[in-house]
């Protein structure tokens, strides 16, 4: 049994003449915390979109838990346990924080029409378990005071926390975080980083796109560098940091 959770082969995506993603082979192991870095326009978000089913690649195959998920719709990929977040944070605006979490956590099976109308004891038990889990997560993320606020009333940073919480409610096997630290104040960024590290320690496999290089180097076990859609380097933070190509394509310009 291989340790690969996600594997990508020959994945290509072009927009007009622009090659957004052109990845020959990449695989991600269970329990690993991997960061994808690269200059703007390197194809990081497009790569996430392809993996999570929001866009279709021109060619190539994607395997998740050894199942082929190429050309699978996003909702089906989500049900398999691959959960993503978005660069521009999305929340269910007109639901409360608690509702956001409980909705994300509920599964189709346990939420039938008749049970919710009749309010059977099993559905009550299910609801209260869900609520308990939601409160645990809110406490962990320090947003339990806002449980009854509408999500649209939260600040940008709080929305980031809610988004993370919502992803956790789904008990993901693989979590794709698209710039989890973007637009967040330094203190909160540090907290978030620690939360992400903890999640990884708890056994959730994480794949993260992030521009904050210091943060990336601090917590990642493995770093993949993309430039113009291609993988130009991968390895531990130390090896990537000293890679000439990376310095040229990315860090070099960033450190000038």
């Amino acid at each position, binding site marked *: 049994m291989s340790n690969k959770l996600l594997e990508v082969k020959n994945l290509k995506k072009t927009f007009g003449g622009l090659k957004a993603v052109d990845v020959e082979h990449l695989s991600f192991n269970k329990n690993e915390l991997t960061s994808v870095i690269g200059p703007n326009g390197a194809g990081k978000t497009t790569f996430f979109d392809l993996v999570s089913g*929001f866009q279709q690649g021109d060619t190539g195959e994607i395997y998740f838990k050894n199942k082929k998920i190429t050309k699978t719709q996003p*909702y089906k990929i*989500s049900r398999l346990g691959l*959960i993503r977040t978005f660069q521009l944070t999305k*929340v*269910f605006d007109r639901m409360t924080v608690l509702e956001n979490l409980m909705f994300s956590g*509920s599964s189709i099976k346990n939420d039938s029409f008749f049970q919710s109308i009749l309010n059977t004891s099993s559905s009550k038990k299910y609801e209260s378990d869900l609520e308990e889990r939601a409160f645990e997560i809110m406490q962990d993320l320090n947003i339990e005071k806002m449980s009854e606020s509408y999500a649209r009333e939260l600040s940008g940073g709080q929305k980031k926390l809610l988004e993370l919480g919502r992803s956790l409610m789904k008990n993901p096997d693989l979590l794709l975080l698209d710039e989890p630290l973007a637009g967040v104040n330094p203190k909160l960024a540090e907290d978030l980083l620690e939360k992400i590290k903890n999640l990884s320690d708890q056994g959730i496999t994480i794949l993260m796109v992030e521009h904050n290089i210091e943060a990336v180097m601090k917590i990642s076990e493995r770093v993949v560098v993309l430039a113009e859609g291609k993988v130009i380097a991968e390895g531990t933070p130390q090896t990537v940091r000293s890679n000439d190509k990376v310095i040229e394509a990315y860090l070099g310009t960033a450190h000038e």
Partner: protein
Amino acid sequence: MIDQLGNGLLLGIIISVASVALSLLYSVTRIVNFAHGEIIALGAIMTLFFSNPVDSRVIYLDRFSPLGLDFVISAFLAVILCGVFGGLLELILFRPLRKAEVGNIAILVVTIGLSIFIRHLYLIFATGRVQNFPLELERRVTYLFFDMTPRNFRVLIAGIIVMVLIGLLLTFTRIGKAMRAVRDSGELASISGINSDNIILITWISSSMLAGLAGIFQGVINDIRYNMGFLILLLVFAGTVLGGIGTSFGAMVGGLLIGIFVQVSVAFPFMEGHIEAKNAVALGLMIVILLFRPQGIFGQKERIS
């Protein structure tokens, strides 16, 4: 003025049911559906076709008539047909447009074109005559302090029951929650494991069934014409906007209020001899209310469902 309250409630329940349908569709799909009126008319016309014992007066289909089915069964069949029709509209027309990423304004114009097209099909098939359901005439009875026929009273009660059911469905069921999720963000709903396409299809079907039901109500309370839906569409939009765009509960209340405004204004002294202008007062009032409460009566703070 009190005399008109009963009429106002009856018109209100028609508009209310139709507004909830329109609002539901808008909030989930962002489509401003001008063809909504034609789905309303479809409900009434199909009920007439199924129930008329003499001659359905729906040409080309007249070889099937008289079907003379029981009125309630006819209405039930018509509502189902409206649902099928709405579902087909989504599958054949609006889903492909959505996948092609056609903009909202273009889609709005498509619904206007669709509305004109379907309305004139009705003119051909159902003729321009004003028709009535084959129901016996009834005498008005006083309920509390307003007068209406027992049949119309039953329509009012049925309308209220339907709306309570819709409210429960949206608030407490998985489907309702999923609709609210797709409304807030389709992408987010899909990463939560919701099949947005499916939810939108269900929304089209349920919205069209409700619209058809509103048409049947309109046919019972007033009469049936090929353009009956178009005539009431503006009031339906007004009800939706007055209640707060995209809130089902707002649409219920807004629709009822518009109906009451329209009918009660008939009793104003300055309206004597100008009854045909009754919509003006209601729509004027709507504008005034929106000036003071731009988000509509139940907009924003009010929780949807």
